[in-house]
């Protein structure tokens, strides 16, 4: 390595200083809290942790969280892909309105999002009496939790894909169409392979948020222990009961699920090494 300093190179103290500032910030804001979660959970040994996690209420919360993510992520994947395909590759009246609607869940507080569903589907809501008459339970039940989660996590996939698809233009799609490809073939053979990294990223973000959502779910859940509590709600309940080890044990499990998604992304990185270059 050459020791000569090129004119464009910043001095060593500046580079080291910036690096140190970033490392310090990451350490205080991210690594330390994450470590605290696991350290507090394990502060009284492994047994209380296992006990807290295997408690029936906790297992029910894990099941409900996974079920919520398992429904809302595929739903948002399909709708997100459709929405971004429509927005990025086509021109139509009301396009900017649609883009604003896609962004809406990001700008509305999750608590408000939850309240909207209570107002629509709750007992005093517009559809409440009709739902009650037909014995359909949405609010204070799993369907409400899933609906609120879908609402809150809707923008992730679309927001990842729209800029990517717009940047890639419609040339390749037009070429595919002129060569005789149908709309579906064009999407699966031309559009999707070029945005697959954005797609993976959007799904991972969507999944992380779906499992971690608190505000909106908290409003529609009714917090019936072991029935309508997801993992974040369960953590909060345990914490408010001063069961710190239990709260941090479940929180740790939630963190592990998030880390597992990150690991899945890293795995895909290895499987599709060449795909990386196409993003952004």
């Amino acid at each position, binding site marked *: 390595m050459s020791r000569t300093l090129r004119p464009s190179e910043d001095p060593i103290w500046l580079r080291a200083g910036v690096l140190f500032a970033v490392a310090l910030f990451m350490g205080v804001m991210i690594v330390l809290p994450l470590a605290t979660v696991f350290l507090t959970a394990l502060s009284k040994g492994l047994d209380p942790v296992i006990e807290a996690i295997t408690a029936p209420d906790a297992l029910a919360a894990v099941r409900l969280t996974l079920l919520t993510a398992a429904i809302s992520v595929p739903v948002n994947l399909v709708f997100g892909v459709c929405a971004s395909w429509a927005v990025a590759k086509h021109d139509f009246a009301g396009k900017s309105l649609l883009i604003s609607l896609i962004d809406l869940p990001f700008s509305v507080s999750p608590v408000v999002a939850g309240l909207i569903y209570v107002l629509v589907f709750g007992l005093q809501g517009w559809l409440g009496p009709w739902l009650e008459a037909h014995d359909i339970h949405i609010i204070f039940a799993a369907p409400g939790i899933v609906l609120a989660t879908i609402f809150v996590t809707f923008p992730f996939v679309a927001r990842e894909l729209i800029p990517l698809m717009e940047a890639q233009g419609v040339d390749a799609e*037009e070429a595919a169409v*002129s*060569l005789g490809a149908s709309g579906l073939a064009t999407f699966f053979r031309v559009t999707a392979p*070029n945005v697959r990294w954005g797609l993976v990223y959007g799904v991972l973000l969507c999944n992380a948020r779906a499992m971690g959502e608190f505000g909106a779910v908290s409003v529609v859940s009714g917090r019936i222990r072991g029935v309508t509590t997801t993992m974040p709600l369960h953590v909060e309940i345990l914490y408010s009961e001063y069961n710190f080890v239990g709260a941090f044990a479940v929180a740790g499990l939630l963190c592990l699920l998030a880390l597992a998604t990150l690991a899945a992304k890293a795995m895909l990185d290895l499987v599709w090494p060449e795909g990386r270059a196409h993003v952004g």
Partner: protein
Amino acid sequence: MSAELKTGSAPLEVRAVEIVKSFARYPALNSVSLEVRPGELMALLGPSGSGKTTLLRVIAGLEFPEAGRVEFGGADVTFAAAAERGVGFVFQHYALFRHMSVAQNIAFGLDVRPRHRRPSGVERRRRVETLLRLVSLEGMGERKPAQLSGGQRQRVALARALAVEPRVLLLDEPFGALDATVRKSLRRELRRIHEATGVTTLFVTHDQEEALELADRVAVLRDGRIEQIGLANEVYDHPVSAFVAGFVGDANRLVGEVRGGRFRAGEMALAGAGVRDGAAEAYVRPHHIDLGAQPAPDAVPATVLRIAGNGPVCRVDLRLEDGTHLEAAIARNGASVIPSQGDVVYTIVTGGHVFALG
């Protein structure tokens, strides 16, 4: 090789009849009619915004007109999808599928066919090999588009468009993104490929030199209308409007007036038969200005500002005594004397195209 590339059916005639198309209330095509003869190589020439690309896309089925018809071999295909028309389309920026290899790109049009019309794997590979040879890219089948130069990418795009055995080949500024040398060699190659395949071909360009060199016939567009259609040299030698005279080929523009069939601008004069009296403009090609060393009747003195060009033709920049600038072209064949910078020469205009102004 050419025999196996010829499509089974005879070359097709393409007709666009009174096409109207507008974008956001701005008319892009204003009742445009065009006929491309079977097996012909035709150029759509015009400045940007003249509607030439829009017309090409309407013929391809990538845009649909508000009025008018598109006919392929007499059959109305105005609203047929691009796929049903059997067109091959080449884009200015190649539009290759970058996640696929060169061979996969070329085979794409065959791969997406419904099973009963899809050639076998062996047949597809054979077709890809033939096309790679046709566009001089043998052995490059496994490369990715990112590993190719611009010229090579455009060859892949051309091979991909030809793979589906199109009845009509459409090219949108196919050489627009390439540098001059590559452009020139690809031009020759397109001509060769056109002769090998015999497919009716229409290409868009804003480069008049490209249009004149490559095409059998040229259609000149301006503001969504066709100004002139004709053989390349016909459009150059007999422009029907001032716009065509100025746009196709180099020309000196002189503003003056016509009196009794004779055009005058300062001391310069030339025949303007058939043009009504009044203000007029003349377009004089550089080779229509003769230079003499000695004064002669009707010759106008001028100073040589600059000599340029190292080809068979030498360009001479001149300034008349009234300040008018002229560009002349003289053959470097020994028959004529090439003046030097600063010389005073005597110019005679031997031809030109005169059009009434306003």
